């Protein structure tokens, strides 16, 4: 009996200790280490980055942050393909990042989520690519600092083209024919990403239409775009297209592994491709769709924003100014040492020797000649509406006109919310 009662005492003590620990743990969680200081000094910042695929970028971003003396900057490296969803959700919480990278989209400004950065950009405004300034400006205020411009176009294998007797396609018809000729039992003709959405905006631009008009009305619902969708549907069902590749379009693997003769990708992938394939790489813009169209390149990219609702807005602005305005050495390192990106700062773009010759120089040329920059009025909800068009009328056999009309309705709803 005594033994057993001892046992009970032991159990009780153990239980008490466990409860105490649990309570302490709970309290500690309430105090919570969210990666920011409790306030006051405001010298702890959190930054969000999407996961760049190129080796060394994460380390570089953390290295820059460490070199900053006025605040302790921690980096959240967000993996997965739904960066925007994670970012948007985080911005509503107390654990929101102080600074984050994203694309210029007006709903962030209308909902007061991003801070006005005009005062830090204004002194060097003229040194920026003016298209990048324009795409970040609303009512004369500039809301984000462009870090890199990322032109997206087709990569192709000249050796395969030669063997199949194919010329670089100038129209979508020619692209579809080329894909058919290039396809062998081992190699598919073309790769436009597993869900084809990467080319959705180029299809619109190359058909002579646009996402929005200058006064923010939908401009994508045209017959030429519908015809383009029909043609893409043909390509999708032809069996000439690479689909379901383990690595999606932003990764050069499908191209470097010889799974496809053409791939839609971005300039960032050039170093890896060159290492794998040497000189056997060419690039061309998204071809013309219909007779009235014009070839197009998507000048994507990433920008730094400051969370206007964060606790350390001023400190965050200081950090963004330090890194993305003042530290040209870091900016050049970021743009050219890992993947290739075009620096939005004219002075840097001119001095970046790696982009001066060969394939990267051709990329810069396409960027300047055919490039379409982001439109700040074109938001994630509208992009999602066009994603649905691609899913329903290219991957599924939906009527393109009806799908475009449905998307136009959704876009109009969004526009009404944003502009009244």
């Amino acid at each position, binding site marked *: 009996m005594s033994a057993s009662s001892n046992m*009970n005492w032991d159990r009780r003590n153990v239980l008490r200790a466990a409860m105490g620990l649990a309570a302490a743990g709970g309290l500690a969680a309430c105090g919570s280490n969210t990666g920011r200081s409790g306030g006051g000094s405001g010298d702890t910042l959190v930054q969000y980055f999407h996961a760049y695929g190129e080796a060394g970028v994460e380390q570089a971003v953390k290295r820059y942050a460490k070199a900053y003396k006025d605040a302790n900057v921690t980096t959240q490296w967000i993996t997965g393909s739904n960066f925007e969803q994670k970012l948007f*959700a985080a911005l509503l919480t107390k654990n929101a990042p102080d600074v984050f990278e994203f694309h210029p989209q007006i709903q962030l400004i209308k909902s007061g989520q991003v801070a006005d950065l005009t005062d830090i950009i204004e002194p060097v405004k003229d040194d920026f690519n003016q298209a990048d300034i324009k795409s970040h400006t609303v009512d004369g205020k500039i809301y984000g600092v462009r870090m890199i411009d990322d032109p997206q176009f087709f990569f192709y294998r000249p050796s395969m083209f030669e063997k199949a007797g194919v010329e670089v396609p100038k129209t979508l018809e020619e692209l579809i024919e080329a894909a058919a000729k290039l396809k062998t039992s081992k190699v598919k003709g073309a790769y436009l990403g597993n869900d084809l959405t990467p080319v959705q905006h180029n299809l619109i631009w190359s058909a002579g239409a646009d996402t929005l008009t200058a006064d923010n009305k939908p401009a994508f619902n045209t017959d030429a775009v519908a015809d383009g969708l029909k043609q893409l549907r043909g390509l999708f*069902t032809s069996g000439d297209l690479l689909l379901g590749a383990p690595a999606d379009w932003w990764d050069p693997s499908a191209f470097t592994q010889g*799974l496809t003769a053409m791939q839609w990708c971005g300039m960032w992938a050039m170093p890896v491709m060159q290492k794998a394939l040497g000189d056997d790489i060419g690039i061309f813009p998204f071809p013309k769709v219909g007779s009235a169209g014009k070839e197009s390149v998507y000048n994507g990219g990433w920008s730094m924003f400051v969370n206007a609702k964060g606790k350390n807005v001023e400190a965050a602005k200081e950090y963004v100014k330090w890194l993305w305005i003042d530290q040209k050495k870091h900016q050049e390192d970021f743009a050219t040492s890992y993947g290739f990106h075009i620096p939005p700062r004219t002075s840097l773009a001119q001095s970046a020797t790696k982009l001066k010759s060969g394939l990267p120089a051709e990329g810069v040329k396409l960027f300047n000649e055919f490039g379409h920059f982001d439109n700040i009025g074109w938001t994630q909800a509208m992009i999602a509406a066009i994603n649905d068009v691609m899913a329903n009328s290219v991957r599924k*056999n939906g009527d393109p006109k009806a799908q475009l009309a449905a998307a136009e309705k959704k876009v109009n709803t969004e526009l009404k919310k944003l502009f009244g």
Partner: protein
Amino acid sequence: MSTTTTRGVAKNPAPAKVSKDRPRRGLRANSTFNFWLFTGPFLIGLVIFVFVPIGWSVWLSFFEARFTVTPSQFVGFENYAAILQDEDFRNSLVTFTVFAAFIVPATWALSLGLALLVNRLRFMRAFARSVFFLPTAVSYVAASLIWKMSIFNGVRFGLANTVLSWFGVENIAWLSSPDPPWYWLVIVTVRLWLQSGFYMILFIAALQNIPRELYEAASLDGAKPGWQTFRHITLPQLRATSTAVILLLLVAAYQAFDEFFNLLPKATWGQPPLVELYKMALGENQNYGAGSAGAVVLTLLICAVTLLQGKIMGFGRGEESK
């Protein structure tokens, strides 16, 4: 286990008397305190992580809550009207029904089959049990990535395509095209692999509970071992477990999210309710009001289906039906 119980029962009266004269703080003395001691931590977790969010969700569903979870504009049943008219949400219920029609019977049959097989093993039974149970420990996200990237990818060196190519079949892009809907094969097989082992264990436990005498009696009455005893003894004896398994499977199917989210990004088909609600509440629009209304509708549906199923199959009447 049984000895502890007897000892406890036998000695109970004595300490109870003692405690009147000499009150003891302790585990035995105050049963109310003990009740809260043991259920308290669990209850706190339940309240914080389950009841508060459910309540909050119901509250949100009556408000215009875009880009905020502390809204101020009361809209009554507007969100409910919107969600019930939303074609995507209604389609997601169809998707769920199709999914459940595949996965519930398939898992039930497979796990029962595995249980019967493993239960008959004369050697290495524990090993076989572990082998089939292990996938339960794998995360849905990890498993769907394996299914998507190595087994069912669309390129020539994907496992499924390699096997098909031996028979001269062209590469299939399993997840890219909704027509033919190969994606169901991927989604159903990944879930089968992940969950069959767990239900197999439940069935094994139930099988071992069937009294041997029943089979002996049946054999004396001339029942042939095999289908006849399975049909007339094993299956009826498993009724309670089967009911529970089907119920759990249905609820799990309703909660399906991970594999659909990871296997079918940017698709407009094959979107079950939770993915649809996730897009609504956490997508571009962050419409927490409509999302919450959808969640409440879904909860009510699950309750209704569960009650109905209980009524039809007699959940909880399992003991008497033995």
